[in-house]
């Protein structure tokens, strides 16, 4: 399945487009999505920072999802670097 991942914060500096599309197996976990994004970053983003990805969370529009949870089918995802509001 294709998973759309919106980019926020420092990840916006990795490419002009605001999201990436990654191909994952059906039933993939968030950990698999993390691995796929890392592979994509290493392959395509000269300024990719793996340490930042390690400290970043994945989320749907409604909640943060942990690595052991499945990637919900048909739902857009987002990568959330450490937050700094206020």
């Amino acid at each position: 399945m294709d998973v759309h991942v919106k980019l926020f914060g420092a990840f916006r500096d990795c490419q002009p487009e605001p999201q990436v599309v990654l191909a994952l197996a059906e039933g993939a976990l968030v950990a698999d999505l993390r691995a796929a994004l890392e592979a994509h970053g290493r392959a395509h983003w000269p300024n990719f920072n793996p340490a930042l990805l390690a400290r970043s969370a994945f989320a749907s529009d409604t909640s943060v999802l942990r690595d052991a949870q499945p990637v919900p089918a048909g739902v857009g995802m987002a990568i959330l670097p450490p937050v700094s509001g206020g």
Partner: protein
Amino acid sequence: MHRHHLTVVEIAEGKLDPAAALEFVSDPGFGGITMFVGRVRDLNHGRDVTGISYDMFVPLALNGFAEIAAKAERDFDGKLKLFIGHAKGRLGIGDLAMVVAAGTPHRDEAFRACRQVVEAVKHTSPIWKQEHYVDGDSVWSEGCSLCEGHDAAAQAHEHDHDHHAAEPGR
């Protein structure tokens, strides 16, 4: 009855309104109102700042504001009104980044509720700031990782990193 007003204001379309926040949390039964106003300041880590851009995942942020408000509602036995507002986009020096107001029967709950909500928003909301410096450099702030599974209850504690923008006295 809407007891909580949760809002994201795109700076190109408007500004946060502290007077509206105070009005919203007012109630005949509430003798205490507190408000936190976070503004963009002109110095960060000793460097002159010209502005801050706030990036935000809006639907998740609003969902989080609702959870933060619901927790405060439980913690204060439902006797409060909250206004939670955050700006989005490129702000200049002095612009308002964040407005949180709490109305409660007495001052103690008002102070505590406002502080609790401010800390929860800062530590859990999907919001990212990028400081713009006089020399043309722009830097994303380090921030709080959401990977550790923090909930709003765990946020009113000290952190080993700096929450530098929109706070006085640093």
